[in-house]
């Protein structure tokens, strides 16, 4: 919307600040995702953590990364994303149900 922002300088300044904040959040999310990945590889490679703790740690970090992916990179945190969020959680639900069901059948 270039023609809208050029008409009003306060709107422009506000938009600029918002974009800057948004970029900051994106970079923080991106950096932390890289960090999580490095940590995950690190603790597996060095064998410094017991397997009992290793797996939950990696799973938790994976969940946080997926959260960053959905909420920051795919903008689910912004307004007007109720329907995408519903569908994504629906898909997550269907996938977990399937995996849970298969897991139970196989190992219970």
């Amino acid at each position, binding site marked *: 919307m270039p023609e809208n922002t050029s008409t009003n300088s306060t709107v422009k300044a506000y938009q600029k600040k918002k974009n800057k904040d948004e970029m900051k959040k994106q970079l923080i999310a991106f950096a932390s995702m890289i960090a999580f990945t490095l940590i995950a590889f690190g603790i597996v490679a060095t064998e410094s953590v017991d397997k009992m703790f290793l797996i939950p740690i990696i799973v938790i970090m994976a969940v946080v990364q997926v959260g960053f992916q959905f909420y920051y990179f795919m903008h689910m945190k912004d307004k007007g994303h109720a329907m995408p969020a519903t569908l994504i959680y629906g898909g997550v639900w269907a996938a977990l*149900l399937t995996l849970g069901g298969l897991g139970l*059948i196989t190992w219970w």
Partner: protein
Amino acid sequence: MSVTATQKRSVGAVLWDYLTTIDHKKIAHLYLIGGGFFFILGGLEAVIIRIQLIKPENDFISAGFYNEMITMHGTTMIFLAAMPILLGLMNAIMPLQIGARDVSFPFLNSLGFWLFMFGGLLLNCSWFLGGAPDAGWTSYASLAIDSPGHGVDFYVAGLQIAGAGTLMGGINFLATIVNMRAPGMTYMRMPLFAWATFITSVLILFAFPALTVNLFLLMFDRMFGSAFFDVALGGNTIIWQHLFWIFGHPEVYILILPLFGLFSDVFSTFSKKRLFGYTAMVFATMLIAFLGFMVWAHHMFTVGLGPVANSIFAIATMAIAVPTGIKIFNWLATMWGGSITINSAMLWALGFIPSFTIGGMTGVMLGSAVADYQYHDTYFVIAHFHYVIVGGTVFGIFCGLHYWWPVMFGRILHEGMGKLTFWTFFIGFHMTFFIQHFLGLMGMPRRYWVFLEDQGLDLGNLISTIGAFFMSFAVIVFIINIFYTAAKGERPSPDPYDGRTLEWATASSPPPHYNFAQLPLTRGLDPLWIEKMEGNGKMTPAEPLGDIHMPNGSILPFLMSLGFFIAGFGFIYQVDHSAWYLALYGGMAFALGCMVVRSFKDDHGHHIPKEELEREAD
């Protein structure tokens, strides 16, 4: 449209128009033609199966050919007939019902159709190239892996390509309904068919990936030497069954939910009443879809999953009877006290209720895990799923074709022939399949090539086959009806049934290619009916008349699908000779090249100027 429609166009021009079209109404025509072709093919296969079983120890066709017949009958009817025809109906009607000018991604829509068509053709090429797939439509892995020849390879490649098309269609409908509803058309004002399209698309989106993965695993096992399903090499054949039914159970709801929506619209239109329990109907549809993902193992009770797993899946299965019951009672209550018109569309809807209810009842019987050990793999199962798929889906398709023919083709189907089709089909259907319940209970197993004399199966099978001839007669009458209507059918007004929803509020029949010159303003459920009741008679525009932006047609979807079609042959035959890699890589490169062209070519579509719209309105 009115200008072009009056001019005679050459066959080549029409053909090129359809090859490049991205108009949702023309893509709907293509889906109906493609799906109709495969429906006739699958029907012929069914008749051959029934002729083989007309008498004990018949040798009309050989045992191997019989296996190919049953496999291709099931696969064709579900993937290549029922689903495409449903996608066709959704394409034709859903955008009109929500007051949109097209779907969200018209190019993708066209690509989805052509992938389906080429996938279906690839699958059927197997008949001429050494034999069709013969491991059953479920293609259970242990059998499918050992099946000689290339039949099952065609199944894998054909369904993979067709399935990708279906997935695209589903995603497209989701995006359309979320983003392109006309002003005032809130979710809870959408007609039930639009709701059903939405929920079905969610099912497609979540269920088809399981099939895709499964087909890839089978492809690797058969063509590239992996051993996912090969027990001798440490694989597990049950994985195929799980993945197949994780897809397959939602798939049967994909086949029925759109028709639930359609019947809701039909009952409400021809009873001249608002749909009874609209909100309950919407949430019952959602609940069916939701439960549909946690019942897949009821197809596998006899596999040996153990009593706990079987009990859980049995209870979940029976729970689905609750939302379905809500729907049945709401349809009955919609008709209760209504001013009912019985024409051929309504006849199919009326015939659906008892037929489908019988299918649902036998479904609950099969859902009981203990009893299922008796029914499993007998004709009882055959009877059950034909009662739901024919009694639900096929009745619904005929209902939808009769109801929406004016919207889709600008003609009205002949009533007399429509009624003849209904009655012969209805009688034939119950003759064919009702008796099969008892054949099953008496112990006739499914998929057997012959049965023996004097085991109490002779008469039942004869009756069943005679019923199949009745159904064939009905379909032939319907085809004659189509040609008769095309030649001599009456041209209806845009609203021949005193309709309630927006597909009846267009300027002409069939609608102009931009659907609405001005997007309509929806003021409540059954928007057209509200305007009629308040004396307006037509929709209030929600926008001033202005230029309409429409996308341009493209041949690329056809070419991309052609590329995948050729690559499919490459995949199938590369095990025989490495020269086939040429087809594999060539086809893939061609398809990817088309994608590159599509990505780098700027095509901003065209505008229909305001003046032209004003001229056409006169």
